[in-house]
């Protein structure tokens, strides 16, 4: 059916009988900071008056109303959106204009959604992010299944390039792990994408000593991805059987963490004497953070003690023979 203003009007008034009751204009919700980063705030409110609310009200032509809950997948938090990497965007930069109609036309809803590569792929201005390599890694990843896309982990309405600008590694770890846990620790979300049974992360990681400290200090992907030095964050999620389970991968002088979590910070300030000292700004890893000065000093003291004992022993033997 050809969409004309008339057919839309008829559809609105007769066929569906609902009309959207525009939410009470609540200008208090529109913070000045939104206008500082985005030129389309008022246009975007056309969508966010419903999609920016946990609940929205529908009213039909007869004045009857019903309050609906916004599906979490369709909800956009204004604060997160206007502080995300896409904060300057208009909704229609990525979504069809047809979605301005309500109820949304089926054609617009079925239309294939944009993915990261549509804007970021094969573009010199984004070359430093290596989106093409990320795409290849994703294709080889265990996450490459039907209905899975970049958006399952990186919500474009709230995504921040956290790791690249992370001053606080602990906060970055929390942010990153929440992406994984939003499905892997939330069975109702997990079962949408897979037929696998519920995972108990505490049980499946019970081999890990000091589990809480590990979960707080490192990202899931430290052990569950294959290292790729050409991109900041590895995207090739490995099957669980291939996850790192050897403690010394991280707990050693040549720590795996220096190629993952701390890979872009290795040139930052170091604390004298410690191996992999950058880790010490946030954490402490047994084996990886040996103090080189103490190592040598201990060997020296131990060696001298041993030599004194050896000398004393030899002298005793010589004296014994003299008796």
């Amino acid at each position, binding site marked *: 059916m050809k969409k004309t203003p008339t057919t839309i009007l008829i559809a609105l008034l007769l066929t569906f009988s609902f009309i959207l009751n525009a939410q009470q204009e609540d200008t208090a919700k529109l913070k000045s900071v939104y206008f500082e980063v985005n030129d389309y705030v008022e246009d975007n409110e056309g969508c966010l008056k419903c999609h920016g609310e946990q609940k929205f009200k529908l009213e039909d032509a007869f004045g009857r109303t019903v309050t609906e809950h916004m599906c979490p997948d369709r909800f956009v938090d204004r604060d997160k959106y206007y502080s995300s990497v896409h904060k300057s965007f208009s909704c229609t930069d990525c979504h069809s204009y047809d979605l301005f109609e309500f109820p949304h036309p089926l054609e617009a809803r079925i239309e294939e959604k944009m993915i990261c590569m549509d804007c970021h792929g094969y573009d010199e201005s984004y070359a430093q992010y290596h989106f093409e390599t990320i795409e290849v890694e994703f294709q080889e990843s265990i996450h490459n299944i039907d209905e899975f896309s970049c958006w399952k982990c990186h919500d474009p309405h709230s995504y921040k390039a956290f790791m690249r600008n992370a001053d606080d590694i602990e906060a970055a770890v929390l942010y990153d792990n929440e992406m994984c846990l939003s499905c892997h620790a939330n069975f109702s979300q997990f079962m949408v994408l897979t037929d696998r049974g519920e995972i108990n992360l505490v049980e499946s990681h019970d*081999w890990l*000593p*000091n589990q*809480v*400290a590990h979960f707080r200090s490192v990202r899931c992907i430290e052990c569950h991805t294959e290292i790729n030095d050409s991109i900041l964050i590895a995207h090739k999620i490995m099957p669980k059987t291939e996850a790192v389970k*050897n*403690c*010394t991968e991280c*707990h*050693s*002088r*040549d720590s795996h963490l220096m190629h993952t979590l701390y890979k872009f910070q290795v040139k930052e300030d170091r604390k004298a004497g410690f191996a992999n000292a950058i880790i*010490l700004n946030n*954490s*402490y890893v*047994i*084996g990886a*953070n*040996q*103090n080189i000065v*103490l190592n040598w000093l*201990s060997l020296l*003291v*131990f060696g001298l*003690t*041993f030599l004194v*004992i050896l000398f*004393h*022993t030899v*002298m*005793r033997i010589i*004296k014994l023979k003299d008796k």
Partner: protein
Amino acid sequence: MATSKIYLYPVWIRIWHVINALMFILLLLTGISLHYSGSGFNLIGFEASVGIHNVCALILTFNYGVYVIGNMVTKNGKYYRKWRKNLVPKLWKQFVFYAVGIFRNEPHPFPITKKQKFNPLQKVAYVFAMYFGMPLLIISGIALMVPDLIGYKVFNVSGLIFYDVLHIIVGFVLSVFLLIHLYTCTLGDKPGTLFKSMVNGYHEEHK
């Protein structure tokens, strides 16, 4: 040649000592494995080292409690008291004996008696090892075993770094003590005499 026998090591001391020795050696080996993990010093696998180290640490801590309480309620505690009296001259005299006198077959300056189980060097070393070193080792070890107990910053550095470096330094000093302790135990009448004492409880000396 007459042999004197003095009963110096009651059963509880010998049991405590053997547990302490075994646990300390296991802690030392696993501690080295953890510290140098991923290198040639990695004597025992990391995962096994963590498990063994934690279990041995708990046994050692309990055993240390037995030692402290034992010394409070039995006469064994008196051997660790009054260690500061005339300390420097006594230490020097004992040091000179180990450095020179022992090779000249000079008599022990502080012979072992029922009232004097340790010479001054031993006494000072044992007091420092058992009443300063061990508590520091245990406290820092507990802090590392239960990291949530640690304050985020200690003396303006991460609590984990502070306690780990402390644990490693004290552990190292006590391991040097162990090495010297083992060697000085060969300085009896025969190299095995003092080891035998710790088995049967009797200190033997030829007069």
